[in-house]
């Protein structure tokens, strides 16, 4: 982290960048927030640890409009989102100085809480430099431990890899955190009966409070005005009035980002109700991979997106009923 701060100071000092986009330490052990730093002295608050899960690429839409370059810290998975935003002309590559930061898997405070750990005062082991694979957690109810892997965000268990897709320089090493296949959960659901599937999604979506956190955090949902906020489709139903509306919202949202979603996992990370929203996006990704050839959004900035492409031999929609 010190290396990052030093580099940020250098870049600010030599005028390469006008600001740094990173994370600012919070007032609890686990709540750093995305923040801009314009002066070297502000960087005392800069932090980069296991709780810096936020994908900063979407902030670059606004930062691209600012005077001068912005040094932005992007984790390997974030760089896919950034590429996708370049492809869609939503960010200006020339306005970004991308420091690809290492990642050893990001932590999910909800997972720690789910283990019954509460009253957290201090967490040790979340720094990038920490070698231990266990978090030591000091709470008002006594000292606890939690395996690092058990506290990791779901997305880190299915990590896309340690490579940054786009960067100006790299700082820090990454760990291999992948220990599951990202399509396993989808595949499991696919084998269920319609009744079971329906019950599963009905239960999950019944929790949705239409807070729009999933949409607003999503780097692919970069619309200036979402269809669900506009009158264009007569679809601006703001709150959950009927269970259908959540289905409509989440299906359409997933559809709109189909072929554009990099599977960055932010939607699931931010959902206050813990809805596994990635299951929607990954279903589309899995279908696209199976039907139209493997495609990773954000891996490059030139390939044709699956939904703006076709082949004469594409599968017919009737394949839906025919697959296993």
């Amino acid at each position: 982290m010190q290396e990052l701060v030093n580099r940020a100071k250098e870049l600010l000092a030599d005028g390469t960048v006008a600001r740094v986009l990173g994370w600012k330490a919070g007032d609890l052990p686990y709540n750093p927030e995305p923040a801009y730093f314009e002066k070297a002295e502000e960087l005392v608050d800069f932090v980069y640890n296991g709780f810096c899960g936020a994908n900063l690429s979407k902030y670059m839409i606004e930062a691209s409009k600012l005077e001068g370059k912005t040094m932005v810290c992007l984790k390997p998975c974030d760089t896919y989102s950034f590429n996708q935003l370049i492809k869609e002309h939503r960010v200006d590559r020339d306005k970004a100085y991308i420091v690809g930061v290492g990642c050893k898997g990001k932590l999910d405070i909800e997972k720690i809480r789910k283990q019954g750990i509460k009253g957290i005062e201090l967490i040790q082991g979340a720094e990038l430099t920490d070698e231990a694979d266990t978090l030591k957690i000091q709470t008002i109810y006594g000292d606890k431990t939690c395996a690092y892997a058990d506290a990791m965000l779901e997305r880190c268990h299915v990590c896309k890899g340690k490579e940054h897709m786009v960067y100006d320089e790299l700082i820090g090493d990454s760990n291999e955190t992948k220990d599951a296949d990202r399509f396993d959960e989808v595949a499991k659901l696919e084998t269920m009966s319609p009744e079971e599937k329906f019950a599963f999604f009905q239960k999950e979506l019944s929790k949705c409070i239409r807070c729009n956190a999933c949409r607003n955090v999503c780097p692919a949902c970069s619309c200036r005005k979402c269809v669900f906020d506009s009158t264009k489709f007569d679809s601006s139903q703001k709150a959950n009035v009927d269970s259908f509306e959540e289905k409509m919202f989440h299906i359409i949202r997933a559809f709109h980002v189909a072929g554009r979603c990099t599977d960055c996992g932010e939607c699931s990370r931010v959902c206050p109700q813990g809805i596994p929203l990635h299951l929607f996006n990954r279903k589309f990704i899995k279908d696209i991979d199976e039907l139209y050839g493997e495609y990773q959004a954000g891996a490059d900035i030139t390939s044709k997106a699956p939904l703006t492409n076709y082949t004469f031999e594409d599968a017919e929609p009737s394949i839906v009923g025919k697959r296993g």
Partner: protein
Amino acid sequence: MSLENKEFKPKIVAFCCNWCSYAGADLAGSSRLTYPADVKIIRVPCSCRVNPMFILRAFEKGADGVIMCGCHPGDCHYSTGNFYARRRMTLLFSMLDYIGVENGRTRVEWVSAAEGVKFSETMNSFVEKIYSLGENVRLGDLRCKN
């Protein structure tokens, strides 16, 4: 009118492209090839005009089945429209199936302007399928139910 008749009468929306399928439906009509009156056709310029929002909207408002018809792949009046439509609908239908909506409620069929018979047969078989599935209870806004 026998409004007391409470037996299931499905609502079925058919999106037909102007150049092939709508004309195919016209040909079915002029050939007097019958299919159930439950089917109501909406004319669109091309199958690529059909937004997944329209399909979900139909279900929201109480449709029991939605079918989309377009030119055969390769024969699109606009060259490529139905290719895009095909991918879009495949993914959408797959998603609906995934969340537990019976996949028989949605269908895509390519019907040319010369295929009046196919149009009629398609509609007959689709309606039959919807009758077998019964009322759509998994999608649909409760406020639209009476």
